[in-house]
């Protein structure tokens, strides 16, 4: 089937014509034996997520004996994307892969994906696609097609250490709600021994996902970073500059943020060690922090300026060309099973990722969980304020251009405006080939 897919149109047509009989007669599929599908998933070997996914897959196969599913754990998000793209181009690709939602543009531009709306044609399928939070569908919707199904989704939240707040004379039950509160309160929590700061007020990671955390501040300042279907960026808009200036102010004016670049990887560890009062991090770390914190902690939405705001993040399932119609249907069944309200709720409880649909939060198990651990619902409550993660054509490169300039500003080598002007100039150049003539 792989060599039968020269253009997107033929695949769409083929899928549409072949999907109906397959759906109508599952017995035929069965008679042909089992359908095998493979998906790449971004976990390094042996992590707890591996066990969870393996468990789900085993359960699914027990209920669906005609489908054989093989998950392949492929390392980081970037590794997973690299492997999936290389393998697909070589004709050996997986049928699905969970990669960052923001990589959809590049995959679509490379004509490597099959849109889900082309196979999810029954009324039940359509209803399923509509059940997800719109904020999570935004990144995967391009040119009117749906290319990504939300699964491992996250957003940024603030974690705060209640003990440190109490020791600093702050209300331990209240998180800073505005930029000013956030700056002043975290400055109060600073602990020193002589000149040496032993415990910081706040850490916002500046490596790895620099632009992501920055985008939260831009959204709070009322701005957007990209638009026009991924063809334009607004890196040097007034709100964008204001957002970066606030980050710099936390270091320079409030002095509660360690100067320079804080590491993404050590953020949670710093927090768990009591070396910092507040961190901004992914909801994906909720379970880790819950299991390892030896002090009471709170989870809150990010503070507001003009408004509240946080980008969504994390990965969507994408279906790759090379999946034959039978496999496409098998993928669809697996996804519908994995994202059913009960399973989505289970996944959210197992990992801390945000269950991507409203009815998952209405399941009895989830309700009981939230009642006992209200921190889990913060990410959901923030979703109405969430914006789509920065995503453009040639996304990795545009994001890298912004990251480089943001880091230059964080390191004090450039003023906020200058850095963002330079980032905008680079991005404009990169996006030139994608402008409509």
């Amino acid at each position, binding site marked *: 089937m792989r060599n039968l897919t020269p253009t997107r149109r033929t695949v769409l047509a083929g899928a549409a014509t072949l999907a109906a009989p397959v759906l109508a007669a599952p017995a035929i599929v069965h008679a042909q034996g089992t359908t095998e599908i493979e998906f790449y998933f971004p976990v390094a070997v042996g992590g707890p997520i591996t066990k969870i996914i393996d468990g789900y897959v085993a359960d699914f196969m027990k209920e669906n004996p005609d489908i054989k599913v093989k998950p392949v754990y492929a390392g980081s998000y970037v590794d997973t994307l690299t492997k999936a793209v290389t393998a697909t181009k070589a004709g050996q690709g997986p049928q699905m892969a969970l990669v960052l939602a923001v990589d959809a543009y590049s995959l679509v531009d490379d004509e490597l994906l099959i849109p889900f709306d082309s196979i999810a044609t029954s009324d039940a399928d359509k209803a399923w696609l509509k059940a997800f939070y719109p904020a999570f569908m935004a990144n995967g919707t391009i040119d009117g097609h749906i290319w990504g199904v939300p699964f491992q989704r996250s957003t940024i939240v603030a974690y705060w250490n209640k003990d440190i707040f109490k020791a600093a004379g702050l209300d331990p039950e209240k998180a800073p709600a505005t930029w000013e509160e956030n700056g002043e309160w975290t400055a109060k929590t600073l602990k020193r021994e002589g000149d040496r700061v032993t415990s910081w007020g706040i850490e916002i990671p500046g*490596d790895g996902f620099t632009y992501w955390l920055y985008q939260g501040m831009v959204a709070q300042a009322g701005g957007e970073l990209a638009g026009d279907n991924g063809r334009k960026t607004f890196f040097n808009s007034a709100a964008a500059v204001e957002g970066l200036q606030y980050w710099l102010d936390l270091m320079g004016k409030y002095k509660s943020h360690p100067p320079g670049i804080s590491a993404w990887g050590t953020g949670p560890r710093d927090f768990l060690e009591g070396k910092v009062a507040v961190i901004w991090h992914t909801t994906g770390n909720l379970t880790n922090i819950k299991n390892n914190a030896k002090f009471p902690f709170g989870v809150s939405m990010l503070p507001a300026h003009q408004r509240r705001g946080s980008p969504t993040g994390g990965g969507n399932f994408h279906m790759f060309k090379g999946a034959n119609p039978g496999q496409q249907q098998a993928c669809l069944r697996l996804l519908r099973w994995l994202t059913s309200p009960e399973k989505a709720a289970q996944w959210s409880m197992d990992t801390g990722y945000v269950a991507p649909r409203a009815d998952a939060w209405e399941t009895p198990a989830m309700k009981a969980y939230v009642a006992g651990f209200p921190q889990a619902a913060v990410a959901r409550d923030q979703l109405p304020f969430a914006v789509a993660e920065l995503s453009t054509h040639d996304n*990795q490169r545009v994001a890298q251009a912004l990251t480089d*300039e943001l880091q230059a500003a964080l390191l004090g080598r450039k003023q906020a405006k200058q850095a963002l002007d330079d980032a905008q100039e680079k991005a404009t150049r990169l996006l030139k080939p994608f402008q409509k003539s």
Partner: protein
Amino acid sequence: MRRETVQGWLLILPALLLLVAFTHWPAATTIIDSFYTTPKGSRPPRFVGFENYADLMTDPVFWTALRNNAVYALWTIPASVILALVMALAVNTAIPGRALVRMAYFTPTMLPMIAVANIWLFFFTPDYGLFDHVLGFFGGVRHNWLGDRDTALPAMIVVAVWKEAGFFMIFYLAALQAMPPDLKECAALEGSSRWNFFRRVTLPLLMPTTLFVLVNAVINAFRLVDHVVVMTRGGPDNATTLLLYYIYEAGFRFWDQALAATLTVVLLALLGLLAWLQFGVLGKRVHYR
């Protein structure tokens, strides 16, 4: 005569086949690719002549990577070679626990670079990492070793030297052991000082080893980027982007085949030039017994 020619070709055939398939053929196609645009989806590659090279000349990240790599090479090569020689001389003398010291020097070489990078990642962690912890006892303040433009590249250099020196030590040690002891006895009879003996006898006799080690060190200075991937991903603000890492980014993150191919050709040319310098210029001055 003809028969011998055929036999000769047959003998080198297996090696030649592998070399052509995995070295020369990819190199040739890379050079060809560097004259074409990147194919995207249904858009095939288009011939553009030297346009990719012209673009590269205006790419600031390329120049940063080149400068970083030059600094990286200029520090790692002499540092690891000199350190290797000093360590080899140290463990070649009769000191107590010699086997243990030799093993300790060689351990970094046996560890995979990814593991090494993860260990050092902890050493460099601000506040409670090993370095800040130790410096803290002496009143040192927080250092963001990997997050600071001034210290990130030196940190990479330190890791590379630590990893490589033990490997080069093995070659020096072997050469030292193969050195006939009567030379030393002769020199002692003549009343030559230890320094004089080292400068006039040991060092010249080690020159073939030094050339070999130098060639390896130069290759490694452009080849070893695993720790960059684990520790900094080229950041902050490209402070630790080395040429090979940039090639990887261009090829497998940005999917820009044209840029990756062009960069590869530049790296190939650079390594070719260095090899020519080493064998052509330095090689002539090496004394083989």
